[in-house]
């Protein structure tokens, strides 16, 4: 009897293990033809504080700033899966304006990407601004984006170009109080290319499925605009950044370092 029980147990074990190994090796989850929605949540902050319009934030060299307009363009979003395949969001819809004024009460601005191939994604890449190739196409492929950018004040009408980031507010330091602060950085025609891309790895895989719509929570540290790769001071002319060939690439590089993936929601 005991032997019989043991034999049954052994048989059961064999069946279970056989089944489970079958699952792993011969029956991987079939994702073909499946797609889902992926959301990028942009959450602006300043260092360890949340970003709030009109709040005074300190920076280096005894300077501080208050901002009442904060927007940037995100484009060419693509995600890479665990097999190394890249899914590029369709070009014609792949440009967005992240505007703090559009944020929910938690200070988050959503970019929702539909029809993403189901897969386990490990990293995201996106550009800040509009790349030269897209800009050189003229009206082609711009759809409504020119209109949106203009309505959002992200178009330089005098140069027919995009502002990649726009920060408007005031700054103070040891010598001045509440002087105008305007950072309008973009590419300048074809002569100055300030488009930058960033790639961010996910702390855990992002599972896009027909019935699973994960969210990627991205923190953007606005303090890095001024205290980033290069520290810049308002007193040295960085209170007004527009088309300058020296200043704008420094700001562009600083901005490309301000993003990090904070966490993932798989649901």
């Amino acid at each position: 009897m005991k032997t019989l029980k043991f034999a049954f147990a052994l048989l059961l074990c064999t069946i279970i293990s056989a089944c489970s190994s079958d699952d792993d090796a011969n029956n991987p989850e079939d994702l073909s033809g499946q797609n889902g929605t992926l959301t990028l949540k942009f959450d602006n902050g300043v260092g360890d504080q949340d970003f709030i319009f009109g709040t005074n934030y300190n920076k280096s060299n005894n300077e501080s700033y208050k901002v009442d307009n904060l927007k940037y363009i995100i484009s060419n979003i693509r995600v890479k899966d665990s097999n190394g395949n890249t899914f590029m969001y369709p070009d014609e819809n792949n440009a967005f304006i992240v505007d703090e004024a559009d944020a929910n009460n938690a200070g988050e601005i959503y970019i929702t990407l539909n029809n993403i191939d189901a897969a386990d994604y490990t990293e995201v890449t996106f550009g800040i601004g509009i790349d030269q190739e897209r800009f050189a196409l003229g009206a082609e492929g711009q759809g409504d984006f020119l209109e949106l950018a203009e309505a959002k004040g992200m178009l330089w009408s005098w140069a027919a170009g995009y502002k990649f980031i726009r920060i408007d507010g005031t700054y103070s330091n040891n010598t001045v109080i509440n002087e105008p602060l305007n950072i309008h950085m973009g590419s300048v025609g074809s002569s100055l290319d300030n488009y930058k891309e960033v790639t961010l790895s996910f702390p855990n895989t992002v599972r896009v499925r027909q019935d699973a719509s994960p969210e990627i929570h991205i923190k953007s540290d606005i303090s890095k605009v001024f205290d980033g790769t290069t520290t810049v001071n308002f007193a040295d002319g960085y209170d007004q950044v527009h088309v300058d060939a020296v200043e704008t690439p420094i700001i562009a590089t600083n901005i490309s370092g301000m993003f990090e993936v904070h966490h993932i929601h798989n649901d």
Partner: protein
Amino acid sequence: MKKIIFFLLGIVCCVSCSNESQVAVYEPIPMVIETPSNFPDISYNLDNNPITQAGFELGKKLFYDGKLSSNNAIACAFCHEQAFAFTHHGHNLSHGVNGGIGFRNAQPIQNLAYQTSFMWDGSASHLDLQPIIPITSELEMGESLSNVIQKLSAEPYYQEQFTRAFNDGEINTENMLKALSQFMVAMVSSNSKYDKFIRNEDNVTFTALEANGLSTFETKCAGCHASSLFTDQTFRNNGLSINPQLNDLGRYNIGNNPNDLYKFKVPSLRNVEVSFPYMHDGRFTTLEAVLEFYNSGITDNGNVDESLLKDDGTYGIDLSDYEKESLIAFLKTLTDYEFLNDERFAEF
């Protein structure tokens, strides 16, 4: 019974007929734009925006429509009149909505498909994007793109014509700008007396004065006003005195590069006879004044083009009275009456 069937058939026919006449469809009928044999290659990429009859017609309608401006009165054509090679007849600076006055002289619209940059300072690097500048400038048309699209969307004509002109039929900024480009790409001026002379057409000959003018032009002007476009498309400071009221820094505004101070794009000279006044601020009303400026009026503002430097260290182009007279005779051979009177580009 038979009668009823006929009656029903009649109704079906009527319905289908009326449907056909009401519903516009995409009409991809190509409009061929030939590059004149004496022109360089076209710069505009037609693959992204192939020109069709319907697209050209739409672009022309938009060009002449005041709805592109905030007060619904200032069309593109307001500052770009055909008889004057699509410039603002006689005005040194452009006028816009609410009495606004622009900073610069309206440039001709001709052969733009062969240009690589637009505006006096080259601030537009693509023809499609150029119209955004005047449309949204508070001093010119003072309108927003979204408002323009809203106004156009309300009009049955545009609802139908955008459908005819574009595969997706949408009334949006992309298609509006593409239509304007289709109209402008077709605006080619290449049938002046000069062109016919160069191409040996219609037994056209130059008078001795015109021929001498051409020869002087080739020695003293064609370095910058090069090729059949009569511009090498570079930006240069030609030594105009600075008007303190405007203090126009030129291409410097684009990248704040000190080397670009007071530089403006070398303008084409086609139809120059009718596109007065001259220079970026329209300060010279006659060609005589322009030539006298090059002869004796250049100011060393610190950044004058090297090509204007003379052996004695001063700037200018020495021109005798006869050279000036013959140059002007030659420049008048660049007037293209076919273009100036071409009904395809005319409002009515």
